[in-house]
């Protein structure tokens, strides 16, 4: 029983103290599940992060599910996942309600006007960092560039949906799986 409550509170803590996404979550996850609880090794965590960059789903959720499963099978996985999303559910709904109330106040409008510009800059930062890392790590830089350019052009000119773009890119992955590395 104690394992369940430990799992729950550990991941509740992770959900409560992480901000943003991706690698920003690594330090707190490491403190909690590797150093304090010793549920997984640091190698396992790093491995999960690097795999998480290219697997479906939210990385933090994948790590929570993985830890939970490792300790207490499916029930553990479900408990860890519920715990990590609980703070988001509560805090975001509160924040959304407050935002709805104040949104039409002139001061709030000015602040949001500025924040929109900040969000644009933040997203560009994500693009630059992700793009750099993916380009650097890729074994076939030409293919990586071609996929990027094809996706960018189809988005620009044909307004293709995100799902279609991902499915087309997956076709390259399937080809790679069957044929070995696409371009040696």
């Amino acid at each position, binding site marked *: 029983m104690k394992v369940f409550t430990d799992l729950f509170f550990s991941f509740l803590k992770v959900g409560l103290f992480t901000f943003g996404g991706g690698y920003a979550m690594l330090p707190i996850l490491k403190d909690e599940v590797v150093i304090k609880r010793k549920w997984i090794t640091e190698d396992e965590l790093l491995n999960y992060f690097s795999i*998480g960059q*290219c697997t*479906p789903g*939210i*990385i933090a959720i994948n790590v929570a599910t993985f830890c939970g499963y490792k300790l207490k099978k499916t029930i553990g996985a479900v408990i860890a996942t519920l715990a990590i*999303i609980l703070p988001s559910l509560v805090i975001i709904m509160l924040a959304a309600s407050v935002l709805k109330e104040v949104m039409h106040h002139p001061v709030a409008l000015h602040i949001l006007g*500025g924040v929109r510009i900040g969000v644009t800059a933040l997203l560009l930062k994500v693009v630059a960092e992700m*793009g750099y890392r993916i380009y650097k790590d890729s074994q076939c830089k030409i293919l990586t560039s071609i996929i990027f350019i094809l*996706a960018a052009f189809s988005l620009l000119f044909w307004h293709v949906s995100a799902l279609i773009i991902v499915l087309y890119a997956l076709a390259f992955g399937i080809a790679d799986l069957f044929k070995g590395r696409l371009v040696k």
Partner: protein
Amino acid sequence: MIYLTLFYSFFLIGLFAIGGGAATIPFLFDLIRKYHWFTASDLTNMIAVSEATPGPLGVNMATFAGFETAGILGGITATFGLVLPSVIIVVTICKFINKFACDEALHRLLKPVQPAVVALILNAAFKIATIGIKDLLTFGVFCFILLFMRYYKAGSIFYIVLSGVIGFALKL
């Protein structure tokens, strides 16, 4: 039945938004086009709030979008839809398949998706830019924040607060 549609839509996002939280943003833009549940301007606010509050970005976005669409139950439905594919995939990998062989296969299958995701997020950034950057002044602020990012490393919250303060000071 709005909850079913919400659940299904976010289940798809959880399944196909490969590469973490920011990858969900282009999919949320597609939801706007398809269902008109919220506006692009709402979505920009959602990103800001999700970056500045605790919790994984993708989960926060799903909760916010679901809440905006159909209240508390909507927020819960969207979030559960988002995380379910992760839980199913990870449990399946752990349970049935040799983990390392499968990781290797997944890695190769999904590697080509990464550059496409970069293009998707870039496209989303352009859409958000057209909402926020309307004149010379806002463009100037944008350049200032980019320069600031280049020379002063800080967390996302810092830049959100900074841009909010600038917005307030300049009455953007």
